[in-house]
């Protein structure tokens, strides 16, 4: 059965206010050269999903720029391919509300586009996680299990605090979901939490969205999944590979740092031979290391010029580190210009920042020092 993909590019932007001021969650830069949407897109492309709609309702310029024609994911197709669906502002007063917030509202708003999908199945996911999923296995499991809906989960140990961020499922021994707890207050222990990856037939999804429109439902989990637990066969698919949730800025920083040092995790995302992580390719020249540089335990993109010291850090494209500068535990986005004798620790600098000679900036691992786009310090 053929499968189409739907990616929610803006869901949970509010988790990362620092980085999503002028971009969608999907276009938040990550790990030298990626954007979060690359994981969702690559996972789909690697499972031969070649028709993908990206629902984006605000801040989508950077996303449009990143995706372009879809060439980099081999999805610049005459039929299918990647389509970004911004809100279609209408000239007519009677069509209001271009804003939506939840997954279900996004689906309702785009019902016209979803109805036009010609594939049998739909796989939906979002952009706030780092994982190299095997969607191919998920799809064959969905088909062979006869489920109406399959939801990917991960079994994790939850504290009361953490459970408030998650959708939690109970299931029977067949993997059929028997109960659902949306952001509960009081659940602890090893539980299946939703990774927000959902497989459903196109036909059923269209029916459910129309139902949601006529009943004015707003939450996919609360209004659709929980109401259909008995009438539909809703199964879970437990993922036991690497998975990192980005729930806030601290998560973003911690996940980045972990992927520098932890080669096993890095390989679980980037080292799987038949499931590469694809992204926009650029024309940067290779990185040039100077005579007096000292680099250790760092991930470095192309196009950098390094003349100082870099340790436990991530340098994006085109970063320049001046002589005698010392960069530790920091993440420098594209184009950062770091002067001489600068000292940075636990800093996250957004695109095209400039740090003048001899500046000393230091944040903390639980609250990195954030420098916004284009700032000069």
């Amino acid at each position, binding site marked *: 059965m053929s499968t189409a993909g739907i990616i929610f590019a803006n869901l949970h932007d509010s988790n990362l206010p620092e980085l999503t001021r002028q971009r969608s969650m999907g276009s938040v830069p990550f790990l030298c*050269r990626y954007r979060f949407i690359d994981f969702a897109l690559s996972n789909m492309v690697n499972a031969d999903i070649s028709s993908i709609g990206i629902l984006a309702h605000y801040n989508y310029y950077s996303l449009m720029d990143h995706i372009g024609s879809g060439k980099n994911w081999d999805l610049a197709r005459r039929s299918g391919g990647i389509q970004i669906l911004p809100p279609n502002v209408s000239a007519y007063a009677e069509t209001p509300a271009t804003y939506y917030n939840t997954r279900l509202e996004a689906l309702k708003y785009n019902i016209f586009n979803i109805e036009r999908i010609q594939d049998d199945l739909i796989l939906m996911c979002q952009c706030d996680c780092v994982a190299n999923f095997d969607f191919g296995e998920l799809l064959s499991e969905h088909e062979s299990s006869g489920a109406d809906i399959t939801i990917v989960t991960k079994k994790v140990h939850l504290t009361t605090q953490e459970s408030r961020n998650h959708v939690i499922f109970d299931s029977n021994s067949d993997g059929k979901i028997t109960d659902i707890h949306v952001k509960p207050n009081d659940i602890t222990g090893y539980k299946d939490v939703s990774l927000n990856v959902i497989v459903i037939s196109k036909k059923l999804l269209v029916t459910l969205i129309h139902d949601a429109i006529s009943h004015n439902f707003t939450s996919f989990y609360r209004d659709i999944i929980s109401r259909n637990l008995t009438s539909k066969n809703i199964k879970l698919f437990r993922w036991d590979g690497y998975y990192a949730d980005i729930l806030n800025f601290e998560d973003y920083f911690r996940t980045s740092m972990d992927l520098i040092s932890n080669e096993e995790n890095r390989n679980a995302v980037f080292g799987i031979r038949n499931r590469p*992580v694809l992204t926009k390719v650029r*024309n940067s020249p290779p990185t040039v290391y100077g005579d007096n540089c000292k680099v250790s335990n760092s991930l470095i993109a192309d196009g950098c010029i390094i003349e100082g010291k870099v340790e436990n850090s991530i340098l994006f494209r085109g970063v320049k580190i001046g002589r005698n500068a010392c960069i530790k535990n920091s993440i420098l986005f594209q184009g950062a210009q770091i002067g001489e004798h600068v000292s940075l620790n636990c800093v996250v600098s957004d695109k095209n920042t400039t740090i003048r000679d001899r500046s000393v900036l230091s944040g903390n691992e639980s609250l990195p020092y954030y420098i916004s786009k284009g700032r000069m310090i």
Partner: protein
Amino acid sequence: MYTKKECVAMLLAGGRGSRLYKLTDKIAKPAVPFGGKYRIIDFTLSNCINSGIDTVGVLTQYQPMVLNEYIGTGEPWDLDRSVGGARVLPPYQGTTSDWYKGTANAIYQNLNFIARYDPEYVLILSGDHIYKMDYSKMLDYHKERNADCTIAVIDVPIEQASRFGIMNTYDDGRIYEFEEKPPNPKSTHASMGIYIFSKDKLFKYLTEDEEDPESSKDFGKNVIPKMLNNGETMFAYPFSGYWKDVGTLESLWEANMDLLGDNPEFYLNDRRWRIYFRNYALPPHYIGCEAEVKNSIITEGCNIHGCVINSVLSNGVVVEPGAVVKDSIIMANTCIKKGAEINYSIIDTEVVVGENCRIGAPRADNVKITLVGSELEIDPGVTIEPGSMINAADLASLKNKNN
């Protein structure tokens, strides 16, 4: 379809480049990797698009597969056009065609490709050099002088001039004589092998040259001298700047090293003159805790745990802990195992250098460069003498000798 173009470029990319030895066993010279991420042909292709020339015929002959695949749709160079763009032109079977017999014959066989775009001018290039040049300025020069043919020249030291084709010109740049590798050069204007022809003259002289059974069908040997003899208006266009023929292992090595340093001789990170190349989304490179990297170029997909000094590494190179790479060029996906030491060498793609191998010797006046061909697996502890050129057959005999 409206297909007219003012100027069409024809890029001669068929040569084997046999002085690059085992590097060109399986690929043509223009496809040889350079500078960590590039292939030699990228410089000429990028020059074309940066000069506003969007129609480039790439003439291939020897081992075209890699080049064919590399150029593909032309998209990395913005040369995937519905009219024009980059087009690979192999020899073909037709009523009169055959393998290309010389540079002039190669163009002659593709006159119908050129004619399709009805250009006023044809730019002839080779894919063998590392340089940045704005061909549009040369074209302006050609147009201003109403020339029939303009040849780009570069000044070389007089003591080297006898290795080149030398253009002797009047003060206004008009060429009155061309000497191929003259023993006693009269000037230092060496031909760069870059020609602009006004289309009609090119068609005329190529057709005549083709009919001449004595001709070796070569621009430098036959067409240019004939045009000079006939008194056509021919000018030398002076170029100054970096220009390197990377036709030998030494010059290839030197050109790579010219990318290093604070003020590199040849600057890649030039936003006004980007060099485009085909690349794929590899992960960022990782420099490990024990690594030491100095005065080097490193790119995507590398994993560096050892010591890399004065070297150029292509994508996906692994340098294990304790390994040392010095004054060397390591091409894509090669792995240098623990404790191996590499000095003044070129290691081709997909090689595995076993633990504690010794390849080459530290660079010195009398030490020759060492070359290890692609896809070899060198057993742990093997020593490869400086100046060796190793391919699979050599490796087998080396093994027998050592046993």
